[in-house]
């Protein structure tokens, strides 16, 4: 089995999509925030919160979709906190974001441990199962790749379309794009800059939390400390790779997932011949290269990182 064989195998693509799922949620979330002009470095912590809260809710007896909802709400809460600090208060988005990551992570860990002081192996829930599509699942290639994924992966794919639709086909999305480019343009049309930004950051953060929830409710069935493992940060890079477009966000996440899946497969074959880390590094290096290539044309939301206050010029 060589690289070509891997690339042609269904299971590789299925794995890529699976690995990409939390990233899809995360990039879409980051995209929403940044489109509105707010960088959200709280993403890593919001992933943790989503992973913990979603899982905990299910463990306490809520249904799986109940857990998803709880995760989204928890993400929205921390997103709202970030939004309040950075939008009306206009604090540094970098610092507030890092603060939110630290806060969200430690709140999650502390509450998990306080709620479950005496576990020696992590309690498990019954996670999302691959959806059963009677006929479609037997299709040659797509059967495996697409139709044996869990509901959350489908939700992620749906969200790509939904976010694209909202951003490009609804007045709300246009307003979010406008507020990230020139807040005065929406103020002058009678819309509230604060409301749009706070709303976008809150909604984006709840999407990020779903990325975390996927980890504990679909990719796995228990919560572990440190299991988010940098996935949130990756999204911050991917959103630039994606030039803030949902379709390219999906592409970027899939590419990253594919690299990871390829890495695992190559490592199992080559063993220690090539240090596995070379493959682990590849997606990050690729992201930088993509960024350098795209930088010239990258149309940053012009108001990104710039707070706006009424009546100030």
């Amino acid at each position, binding site marked *: 089995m060589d690289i070509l064989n891997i690339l042609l195998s269904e299971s590789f693509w299925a794995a890529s999509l699976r690995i990409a799922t939390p990233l899809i949620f995360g990039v879409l979330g980051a995209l929403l925030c940044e489109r509105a002009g707010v960088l959200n470095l709280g993403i890593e912590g919001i992933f943790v919160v989503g992973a913990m809260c979603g899982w905990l809710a299910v463990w306490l007896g809520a249904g799986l979709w109940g857990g998803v909802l709880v995760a989204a709400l928890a993400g929205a809460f921390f997103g709202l906190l970030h939004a309040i600090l950075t939008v009306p208060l206009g604090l540094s988005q970098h610092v507030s974001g890092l603060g939110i990551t630290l806060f969200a992570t430690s709140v999650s860990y502390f509450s998990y441990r306080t709620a479950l002081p005496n576990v020696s192996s992590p309690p498990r829930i019954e996670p999302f199962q691959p959806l059963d599509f009677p006929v479609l699942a037997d299709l040659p290639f797509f059967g495996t790749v697409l139709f044996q994924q869990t509901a959350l992966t489908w939700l992620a794919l749906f969200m790509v379309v939904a976010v694209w639709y909202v951003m490009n086909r609804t007045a709300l999305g246009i307003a979010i794009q406008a507020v990230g480019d020139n807040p005065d343009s929406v103020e002058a049309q009678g819309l509230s800059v604060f409301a749009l930004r706070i709303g976008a950051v809150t909604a984006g953060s709840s999407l990020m939390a779903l990325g975390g929830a996927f980890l504990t409710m679909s990719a796995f069935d228990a919560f572990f400390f440190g299991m988010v493992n940098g996935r949130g940060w990756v999204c911050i890079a991917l959103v630039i790779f994606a030039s803030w477009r949902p379709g390219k966000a999906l592409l970027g996440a899939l590419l990253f997932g594919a690299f990871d899946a390829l890495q695992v497969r190559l490592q199992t074959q080559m063993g220690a011949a090539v240090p596995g*880390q070379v493959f682990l590094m590849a997606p990050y290096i690729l992201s930088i290269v993509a960024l350098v290539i795209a930088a010239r044309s990258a149309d940053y939301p012009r108001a990104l990182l710039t707070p706006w206050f009424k009546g100030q010029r």
Partner: protein
Amino acid sequence: AEKVKVAAIYTLPVEQQWISRIHKALNAASDRGDIDYTFSENVANTDYERVMREYAEQGSHLIVGEVFGLERAARKVANDYPNTAFLMGSSFGPVAPNFSVFDNWIHEPSYLSGMVAGAATNSNVIGMVGGYAIPEVNRLMHAFMAGALETNPEVKFIVNFIDSWYDPPKAKESAFAMMDAGADIMYAERFGVSDAAVERGVKAIGNVIDTSGDYPGTIMASALWHMEATIDKAVANVAKGNFEAADYGQYSFMAYGGGSLVLDESLVPAEVVAKVKEREAEIMDGLFRVNVNDERPVSDN
């Protein structure tokens, strides 16, 4: 007599397999009323030494932990507190008068679990997912591989390390990749591997802890680690006032009850069970020695 005050310092949360075994043994001793037990988990490497000293200053009698990343510093601390007993997971030796070491020497049951795996594979490919390629992991993998080769000289291994102690989704992906490459038995060194096995309907072999309850019908056998023998011995020595620097490693051997094999007899053919029992008895009697090999295992090609 005064209860022995024991403090434990873990570099990872107590859910981690390895640590959970120490934690469990200490909790048991605490429940019996032998010790007062406190612990700190997830202590960063930089902070470890401070925590050791704090516990020492607070008058702990016995400090238990794992010093793999900070062998020197830990010995320095022990040297500064000669009246405190230290029992530390370590790859190196003890230091007089008060620094003892232990390690998860369960290569024996690992060998036995390998025998089960070797006999069970149809594809003759076994997948192994590890955390980091450190001696503690490598040694068990090699023992397992040796056991598998005994029952099935044809067997090939695929090995992968995920470079994390804690990333079940990643371990799961790694396991899937191995199954795609033909593995039909998985050696589950990390959380996540057994889940992949369940999803694909293949069998798995457990390590350190017994998870057969969580994955009924999937875990054929597990090599278990029991820290009770080690902890109880050390606590008793401290209580008696004759704690000495020693290598407690042997208390993880099967003969001391520190390691054991558990089998799901409904999943393992009777003749294999018999063969394994036979080896097990030989090990207990000291008639069979399992080789120790700390090198990083690599996939067969």
